[in-house]
């Protein structure tokens, strides 16, 4: 059992509040990503869990017990840093076996575990090679393997994939997640890359300026962002956020986008969100994959926009559109084609769309 609980955790560096009254519960065997831009407090939080830093307030609890007085070495956590600390003069095998030899495990047990982890990380061929001769990708895998082999109950990783090339990163994401499922460790993963957090984590803690913005499963955070920060941070390209005003007339409720047009609200989910609007200044949020593009007819009541740029990037096409004061990105299929300068009518797909209060930046209905 290795659950982690952070209770009102606070850490200051001089005047800077790096982590501010953070409350977070990480279950046994859970994979949690601490996600945010640089300076958001995610690495400090991890250092507090590990015992590298001591909190100025609040507690870190493992399985319900405050570990404030337990030193780093005795917390039983494994670490992987962005700058993998590998013994370059030793072979790959020796790097892996080292942690187990220190503990005095029997030789055949060590050998079995080294081969097991090397197979998992595709390093079997490289076992006799001095680590100095490994490529960047292999070095990173060795870094992960060296921590994983000791089988710590809590595994902390700080941007471990950021030095890898793109294609290999995609493979490592899957493998790391699979490794965690197999070894059953509690994993805390620090990253600034929303894609890594989405693909690997059971739950994501989105942080900004030392404050927890939202904590939930990847799809909860993606589908129901609590505020504008989370809405902007998750997804690539990020959510389209268009300033608008909520208007009411005999015909019902509508969103007024000034010169770009009006969208009448018939969608039930949107009408429900509107019910909790406290003021008329709003942001309308629409994921790029939820944007519907159609030829201009004038009677559908979408936004009139012009195509400014088309990016064909493999499986997807990103269409950039603009009107007076608004910009939208839409994701279309690989074979989608449209001319730059073409007029288009832009509307959300049925059931898609989020409203945020422009002043508080909180999602309507988010409580």
């Amino acid at each position, binding site marked *: 059992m290795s659950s982690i609980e952070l209770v009102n955790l606070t850490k200051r560096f001089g005047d800077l509040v790096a982590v501010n009254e953070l409350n977070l519960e990480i279950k046994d065997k859970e994979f949690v990503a601490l996600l945010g*831009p*640089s300076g958001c407090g995610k690495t400090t939080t991890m250092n507090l869990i590990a015992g590298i830093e001591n909190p100025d307030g609040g507690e870190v609890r493992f399985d319900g017990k405050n570990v404030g007085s337990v030193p780093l070495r005795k917390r039983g956590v494994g670490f992987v840093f962005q700058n993998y600390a590998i013994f370059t003069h030793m072979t790959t095998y020796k790097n892996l076996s080292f942690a187990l030899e220190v503990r005095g495990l029997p030789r055949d047990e060590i050998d079995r575990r080294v081969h097991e982890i090397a197979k998992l990380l595709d390093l079997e061929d490289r076992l006799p090679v001095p680590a100095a001769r490994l490529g960047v990708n292999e070095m990173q895998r060795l870094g992960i393997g060296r921590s994983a082999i000791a089988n710590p109950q809590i595994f902390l990783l700080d941007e471990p994939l950021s030095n890898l*090339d*793109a*294609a290999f990163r*995609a*493979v490592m*994401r*899957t493998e790391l*997640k*699979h490794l965690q*499922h197999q070894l059953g460790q509690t994993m805390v993963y620090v990253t*600034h*890359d929303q*894609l890594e957090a*989405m*693909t*690997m984590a059971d739950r994501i803690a989105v942080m900004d300026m030392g404050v927890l913005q939202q904590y939930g499963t*990847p*799809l909860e955070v*993606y*589908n129901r962002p609590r505020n504008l920060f989370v809405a902007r941070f*998750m*997804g*690539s*390209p*990020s959510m389209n956020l268009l300033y608008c005003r909520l208007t009411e007339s005999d015909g019902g409720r509508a969103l007024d986008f000034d010169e770009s047009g009006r969208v009448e609200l018939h969608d039930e989910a949107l009408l429900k969100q509107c019910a909790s609007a406290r003021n008329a200044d709003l942001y309308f949020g629409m*994921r*790029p*994959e939820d944007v519907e593009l159609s030829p201009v007819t004038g009677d559908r009541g979408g936004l009139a926009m012009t195509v*400014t*740029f088309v*990016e*064909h*990037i*493999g*499986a997807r096409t*990103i269409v*950039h559109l603009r009107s007076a004061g608004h910009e939208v990105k839409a*994701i279309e299929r*690989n074979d989608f084609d449209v001319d730059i300068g073409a007029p288009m009518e832009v509307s959300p797909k049925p059931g898609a769309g989020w409203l945020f209060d422009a002043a508080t930046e909180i999602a309507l209905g988010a409580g």
Partner: protein
Amino acid sequence: MAKLELRGVTKTYGKTVGVANIDLTVEDNEFFCIFGPPSTGKSTILRLFLGLETPDSGEVCIGGEVVNGRLPAERDLAMVFQNLALFPHMTAGENLAFPLAERKTPKAERERRVNEVADKLHIGPLLNKIPAHLSGGERQRVAIGRALVRDSNALLMDEPISALDARLREEMRVELKRLQREMHRTLVYVTHDQEEAMSVADRLCIIRDGGIAQIGTPQEIYNAPNSRYVAEVIGAPPMNFIAGAIGEGGAFSADGLDLALTFKTNGAAGPGDVGVRPEDIVIEREAPGGHAVAATIYEVEPLGGFTVVALSVGDSVLRAQITGQPQFTLGEPVHLSLALDKCHLFASADGARIATGATG
């Protein structure tokens, strides 16, 4: 603006080959992107154009003229490096004006050009600030502006935005493409980011170990990679490969899998690999018959707008990319089928593409 060419150029450093017998032509006003993993010879190509390297053999041409003997300053090329060397004591405006001042451009003309470029790059309000007071993205714009401010034969850029964060890179690549179009410049652009390369390039040149693996539009390269190497480095998640054997008449049978496909191979036979992109794999819960293969769910990676599903098939793991947010359980048995017209067949021996499009 001018056309740039390398004709049979080789450059070695001692025993290390920088580039080997390369032929390439960058057309006038083209956004030409050189893509490859680190240390494959991308930057060597830029340095050969700039005159910072002398070829061992072959010709470097600018605007149709051989420039091998010309000094860098005589080649009239503008360069933007990854480490943007702005003068820290000068304001953004002074940095922009520097290449013009150096060439003794009249003051009025200088101001007009600086304002024009600042306007195009949306950095007008920043002209009085020194670099230390600008953000990373703003500094990058100033560095790009400084290369754009004077007329030159061509612009060369070496990973100009790779130091910026992901979000900013997405914005800047669109900006760069817009600028290049609006200002009608020949642009040679080096990057190791495949998505960036696909997004900006009119044509893309894939470099492998100092040689050219393929040149084409991003669409051509994505849809018809001429080798397994190109197929692997373009596209994320990467293309899946299934090892097997090519028999008589183009019949492919996969190793350890119940998968048989037929390609038009013109007699090629021997070990082969079928390549299929993640978006060209369909997952079904019910066995659809035909060429479906039994698989189990290995991991599920939700990305919001789409989901990457890793599937355990025989001894290997294949990735499928599915639109939307489908729900699967780990270990769940499923069936996968391939979009046959999008399957490629590569020879295992040299990685060359033999055929595209299969029948079941």
